[in-house]
């Protein structure tokens, strides 16, 4: 018999066959499966309320209503999507720009994720929503420039207003019933500003009458500084505090020390 047949009873044979079968099935499926409908239009060269409206109707109206008036689910007063008049271009820039919107399905909280639109498309959507009613605008670059802010003052503001939800290092924290305040170490300055300004989901609204634009910039300066500074003492273990330190001590600290003890007590060759 040939070499392949001679190995037909090899223990790996069945594993290889299964893998081949899976690959084949996957490849066939990929070829013949229907593609998702592509609802994005072509990239725009200028902000356009009409383009924004078209995008809105194609991607957002199923939850937010054809004219952004909001849509109820029919289940009590639960909403599929709230009315968007007055949320402003800043909210659109934040929600769509961090990939939270369009929301894939009903869930406890919209997580940040893959951004589904180009910057121009986001701007167009924002222009459309801003046209419905006045609301917070996308901040200028100067307003969110960390170099212009005071990180020490920003730290004081952060600890009073933000750390209780987002943790002292911005590593995130738990809210009730499965909601959470996300980690903010990987968020652009613009999006941080917009989140404070618009108060997405469970986050309170920190309007300009609560935290002035300068205060917001100070917070951004603080977050940028601690991000750059990383960890003087070594591995951060997620900046989660004593819980992760204790876990490390029990698993690695004790593990290594017990390993040394076992080696010490064992007979030499």
């Amino acid at each position, binding site marked *: 018999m040939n070499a392949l047949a001679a190995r037909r009873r090899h223990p790996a044979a069945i594993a290889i066959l299964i893998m081949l079968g899976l690959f084949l099935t996957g490849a066939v499926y990929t070829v013949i499966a229907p593609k998702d409908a592509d609802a994005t239009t072509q990239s725009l060269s200028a902000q356009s309320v009409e383009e924004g409206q078209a995008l809105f109707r194609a991607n957002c109206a199923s939850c937010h209503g054809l004219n952004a008036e909001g849509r109820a689910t029919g289940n009590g007063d639960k909403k599929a999507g709230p009315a968007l008049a007055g949320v402003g271009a800043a909210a659109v820039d934040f929600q769509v720009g961090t990939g939270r919107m369009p929301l894939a399905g009903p869930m406890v909280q919209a997580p940040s994720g893959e951004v589904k639109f180009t910057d121009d498309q986001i701007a167009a959507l924002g222009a459309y929503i801003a046209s419905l009613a006045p609301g917070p605008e996308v901040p200028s670059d100067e307003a969110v420039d960390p170099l212009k802010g005071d990180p020490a003052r920003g730290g004081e503001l952060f600890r009073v207003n933000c*750390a209780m939800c987002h943790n*002292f290092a911005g590593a995130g924290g738990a809210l*009730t019933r499965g909601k959470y305040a996300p980690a903010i170490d990987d968020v652009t300055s613009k999006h941080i500003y917009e989140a404070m300004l618009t108060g997405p989901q469970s986050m309170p609204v920190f309007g300009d009458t609560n935290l002035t634009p300068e205060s917001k910039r100070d917070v951004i300066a603080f977050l940028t500084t601690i991000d750059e500074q990383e960890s003087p003492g070594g591995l951060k273990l997620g900046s989660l505090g004593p819980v992760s330190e204790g876990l490390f001590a029990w698993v690695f600290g004790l593990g290594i020390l017990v390993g040394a*003890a076992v080696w010490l007590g064992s007979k030499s060759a």
Partner: protein
Amino acid sequence: MSTDTTPRPADTLREGDTPAQAPPSAAVRTIGGVAGWVDDRTGAAKPVGYLMKKVFPDHWSFMLGEIAMYSMIVCLLTGAFLTFWFVPSAGHVVYDGSYVPLRGVSMSEAYASTLDISFDIKGGLIIRQIHHWAALMFIVALSVHMFRVFFTGAFRKPREINWVIGSVLALLAIIEGFAGYSLPDDLLSGTGLRAMEGFVQTAPVIGSYLAFAIFGGPFPGEMIIPRLYSVHILLIPAILIGLFTAHIGLVFVQKHTQFPGPGRTNENVVGYPVMPVYAAKAGGFFFIVFGIIAMMSALVQINPIWGYGPYDPSPVTAGSQPDWYMGFADGALRLLPGWLEVSAFGFTLSLNIALGALVLLPLVYTVLGAYPFVERWVTGDNREHHLLDRPRNAPTRTGLGMAAITAYSVFWFAAGNDIMAIKLGLSINDITWFFRIGLFVLPPLMFWVTKRICLSLQRRDRDTVLHGRETGTIVRTPDGRFFERHETTTELTPEQWVLVQHEAVAPIEIEAAVDENGVARKAKRSERARARLSRFYFADAVNPVTPAELAAAHHHGAEHEAIEAAPAGESAELESGEPAGRH
């Protein structure tokens, strides 16, 4: 002695002479001189000689207490260093050091000096991190050491005193740690102090007075930092050092226990002497422990107080937990429901807080410290025990220990419920309810599972002995049956000794209800309780194989797998010339 190669007749006269020794070197003479000087004045040669000959058995699990001890020494050493730079004062100061995000911020001197240690003093951060990691490893190691001592029954007579000392050491260690990490006066530890003040305040009748006494006034006050400092560098270390010296001294005097094995009895210690083996191993292990802690401190950050910010009663960070060893008390505070607080006639009794914070800690350590005496009362065993139990041979004790660890762990993990919620994507409300119910369900379940596992392992040990050694030789009888030849003798191999060395146990019987004169005697309630507990401990005991049982099994085996009286030749073809050992 002679270096000549050609033997000469007179050489035989020198056989049996003791060889001349080389004269001692200068170094040895100096040391000898100093030692003699000291001994002239103290008589130290006798105890030093005694200690150098002490024998210590070799098992890695006996090193756990050493890990704890060495970690404590590292803490003492690095702690002494830190006292040269730390300022234990709550006085206000405006920060002006190298850490930019806190420049210009108002804070206490304690916090500012800790920032200086971390950023403006060479080697300050590494010493601080070594101190904190060593503290964590101290308590981890003493806990695992405690488990080892418990599960092997090393707390039995004559070591009950050492167990009680150990329980007190454990309690003091966690209080010491709490005081230590609260000293920098950062937001996280300050929040912990706030919680402490809150639960002290709820103590019935005296709560508010007690809180004001501890803090020297309203919270936070300026006294708590200096007071914690005295507790942390003076009071508790003094007691810790005294107690652990007694702890080690007792180990020397009573000699270390040992695991059962060939040659090891209750009346001896088998191992290696301090000089030179244990001096090298134990001394070397100190450097290993210190070195590993130093490596951890070089690579892994701990307690980044600069991130938390100075303590202020208004801000707070998500994920506010104490260090791991206080977690069980914090978890208890999260799990106890609010309806336990009752108020009447203008007085409020917060059982939801008092039970978790004021009662739980002393209760845990009291139960811990009392266990050896309870077990002795139940078993009625007053003999000295120097041979350790294999945990499977004490199934009820092992089960109780695992149940206790489970209950502790429920509280402990509950303190991390918000971290678990965000890392596992769960709801903290669900996690809290899981632990609330788990506290009552999981420990009994764990007791039962552990006990069953122990009994099964004991039965397997019995089978291993009775069953004999599988030789791997398959024999086929003329009528087509296959069986494997097992080799037993009524003598055990040394490996099997461990499986049969433990003692048989049985529940205590209450003395007869009727004594020899026919007078009825009512058993006291405590006797009945004792008998009930004894039954709980020993009713389903699996006892070790005795020689009689082995012989019986041997003989029964002869029937079950009897080879017919086949000609020795036929069965011999399948063997490789082994003697006809019966299975």
